């Protein structure tokens, strides 16, 4: 869109500058501090390439990159392959209990750190319930989900909700008459997905795949627990940074540089593809879920329920575990008891719940406001400045949370920017780390909205700002909400940077889960995790109640 007054300095340019300044301070500056280490020899203070050379010359190290790429590519593809049809089926077919299923799907994205993967071990580990069951019934020697396949499985089930949410939001903006046109031209259900739906939601699909790619690429929790010998680069980074034995910060920083480079490449590729595949539509007639009958109906239900069932399985296991009777929270002795809840809910001080939601709420507010603005700027007000903004806002997502946490401590522990130990630093790290969800989905959706809507508003005398808030933002809502919900869910389950940044007064539920997990008290951890799950379900329900939305991906 070209406005006549575009070239001049507008209110939008000042927004760009302010946001850029914020990100420069909270991303670029701490990052530079960390990244400097990757090329500076700590002893001599001279420039050195030795870390990078070390990585690329030793198979021991570079193989982790290959591993990561393999796992990430597989999981991303599978997540897209599951999430997309899920979204399509849920949008086009009336599924029983779809509102409830929606919540379950979101909740399965809220995979509590460590404990989610651990739940899989309980089910599919060498001594897992399902493993034993399968092995006795079929008389085979299934050796658990460890290694490549297991990581891919867990990542896939953990990630598809994101594709689902995003695509679902995008489908909402897709004009159904396109679907109908295809159908009238003889296109069957399946072909319609591949020929019409997929290309049209491509920007969204790419955006969500990008996020998954980056999330999976940077996640260390899952491969750490079930990777066994299969080491990925985030695990390597984590162990180098967090080594108890004396890791090598410089090397770890160099690893970060490599990860960041990789993800920037992926990001650019995604942007290139998404820009080429954006088609604006105005859905006066969006798709509506139809009641169908017969085999198709059964298959649709079976597919949805199976996937959702699998995805929430870890949560179920965790909740189940939280009610088990145990010795010292470690060894389950059979039978049920509320002891884990006694040890968590009732005996310790429960500020953690309050903290989680307080910090979360403040962060999500910042996320939504900035996210909507940034996406608008980058799509509608294209300029080098805003492209830079688009890219920079992705950085915090790319960088392993623990690295970000450390760099924050590093950068903001001196006056005048003495932030460490405050709630503010937690909020900032939540906000900038989880903002990409909202930005990506908003960016994708905004591309779908026909600029003529804004033009209409402007022609009616709305200022650009007004037309933005009154017309564009409400129309973006399906996408923004999809992203905001994902942001929310991940904010309240954020761990890797909060574990570095939290203090007693800002301890969150996830930190509590983590601290219980690392000392093996899975009973208490499960109880905390259950509290997290339940309170977040409540928060979602409350949200829908307040916004008057009936289905979650509106």
């Amino acid at each position, binding site marked *: 869109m070209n406005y006549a007054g575009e070239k001049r300095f507008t209110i939008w340019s000042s927004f760009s500058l302010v946001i850029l300044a914020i990100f420069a301070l909270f991303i670029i500056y701490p990052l530079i501090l960390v990244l400097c280490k990757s090329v500076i020899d700590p002893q001599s203070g001279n420039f050195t390439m030795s870390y990078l050379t070390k990585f690329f010359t030793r198979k021991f190290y570079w193989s982790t990159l290959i591993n990561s790429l393999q796992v990430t590519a597989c999981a991303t593809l599978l997540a897209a392959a599951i999430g997309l049809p899920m979204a399509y089926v849920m949008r086009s077919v009336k599924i029983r209990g779809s509102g409830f299923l929606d919540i379950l799907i979101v909740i399965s994205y809220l995979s509590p750190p460590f404990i989610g993967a651990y739940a899989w071990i309980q089910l599919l580990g060498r*001594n897992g319930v399902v493993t034993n069951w399968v092995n006795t019934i079929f008389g085979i020697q299934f050796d658990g989900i460890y290694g490549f396949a297991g990581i891919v499985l867990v990542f896939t089930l953990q990630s598809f909700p994101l594709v689902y949410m995003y695509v679902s939001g995008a489908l909402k903006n897709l004009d159904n008459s396109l679907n109908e046109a295809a159908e009238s031209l003889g296109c069957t259900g399946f072909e319609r997905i591949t020929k019409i739906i997929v290309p049209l939601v491509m920007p969204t699909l790419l955006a969500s795949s990008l996020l998954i790619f980056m999330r999976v690429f940077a996640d260390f929790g899952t491969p750490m627990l079930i990777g066994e010998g299969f080491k990925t680069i985030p695990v390597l980074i984590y162990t180098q940074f967090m080594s108890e034995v*004396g890791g090598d910060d410089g090397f770890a920083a160099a690893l970060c540089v490599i990860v960041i480079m990789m993800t920037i490449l992926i990001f650019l590729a995604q942007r290139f593809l998404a820009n080429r595949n954006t088609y604006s539509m105005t859905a006066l007639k969006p798709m509506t879920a139809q009641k169908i009958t017969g085999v198709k109906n059964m298959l649709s239900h079976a597919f949805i329920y199976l996937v959702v069932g699998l995805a929430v399985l870890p949560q179920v296991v965790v909740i189940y575990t939280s009610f088990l009777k145990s010795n010292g929270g470690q060894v389950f002795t059979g039978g049920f008891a509320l002891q884990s809840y006694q040890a968590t809910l009732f005996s310790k001080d429960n500020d953690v719940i309050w903290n989680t939601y307080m910090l979360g709420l403040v962060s999500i507010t910042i996320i939504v406001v900035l996210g909507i603005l940034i996406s608008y700027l980058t799509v509608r007000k294209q300029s080098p400045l805003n492209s830079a903004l688009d890219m920079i806002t992705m950085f915090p997502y790319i960088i392993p949370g623990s690295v970000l946490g*450390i760099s924050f401590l590093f950068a903001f522990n001196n006056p005048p920017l*003495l932030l460490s130990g405050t709630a503010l630093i937690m909020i900032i790290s939540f906000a900038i780390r989880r903002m990409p969800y909202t930005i990506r989905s908003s960016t994708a959706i905004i591309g779908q909205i026909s600029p003529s809507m804004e033009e209409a508003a402007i022609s009616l005398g709305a200022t650009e700002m007004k037309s933005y808030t009154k017309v564009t933002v409400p129309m973006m809502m399906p996408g923004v909400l999809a992203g905001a919900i994902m942001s929310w869910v991940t904010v309240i389950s954020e761990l890797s940077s909060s574990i570095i940044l*939290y*203090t007693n007064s800002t301890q969150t539920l996830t930190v509590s889960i983590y601290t219980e997990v*690392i000392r093996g008290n899975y009973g208490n951890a499960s109880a905390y995790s259950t509290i997290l799950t339940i309170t977040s379900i409540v928060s979602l329900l409350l949200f829908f109640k307040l916004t008057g939305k009936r289905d979650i991906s509106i």
Partner: protein
Amino acid sequence: GCGSGTSEKPKTAAGQEEKVLTVYTARSESLNNLVIPKFEKETGIKVEMIVAGTGALQKRVASEKNNPLGDILWAADQTMLNSSKELFMQYVSPEDANMGDAFKNKSGYFSAAFADPTVIIVNTNLTGDIKVDSFADLINPALKGKIAFGDPASSSSSFQSLMAMLYANGKDGDPMSDEAWAFVDKFIANLNGKMLNSSGAVHKGVADGEYTVGLTWEDPAANYVKNGAPVKVVFPSEGAIFPGESVQIIKGCKHPENAKKFVDFMLSQKIQEQVGKELTVRPLRKDIKLADYMTPTASIKLFKNYDEAWVSDNKNTITAKFNERLEKSMK
């Protein structure tokens, strides 16, 4: 300029410190739960605990060095921390005199309070008739792929286990001898490509029946035994390493006086005794009785030529060498 230099020292008008203390702890929950409330009650100082993994806490202390937010680092040991002495305040507790000779605060920084020897944890449901008494038993092909072992380059407990293994198999007890590393090669081969990335997963994995044996430290392993898990603790017949898990005051901290009280409290007769009686860590004060479910200290064989200072100085060389061996084992 660092925070400690400014005028806003958290002192009350009377020149007294605020009654608070921030403790970074990686210690087990049972230990925390036993010690901290007692300390609070006794001294009236409110303890704010930051609980995380050893590595994360070390990193935190390092990152905060210009403006420390914590007072006490209650994690790791001298072997691991010696190289970053500058982060800590020198303090020798008056109680130090009562500690066992090997565990006196000779450096001036690290007050060893409890010990956590390296052990083998064995799942009794899974071992069947496989004998697991020693490191040598771990290269039994019957255990191939069933050993839980952490990454010695990142986990301190795994590193200690590796050290024990090296001392046990080294020629004349020389951990850097070819024989020692030849054994490590065999051990790596028997791991069958499986190496855990978190030390917690080692004992948990064995207790859950995911692995048959694991190399870990005594506290969690014994705790499983105490809580009735199907595991037993084996002190390898070749010997064990007996690191003195220490408590240290962070340099430039806001509440050094409270911190000192905390160190004193840890080493006090009362606490040491109670821990010995009720928990699964070993107090290091002289003449403290252990609970009867613990292997008596006397029956644990230690390596005679174990040299903590040398290990501490060479830990990077050792991990690098281990990684090299590991790399070679990958095709």
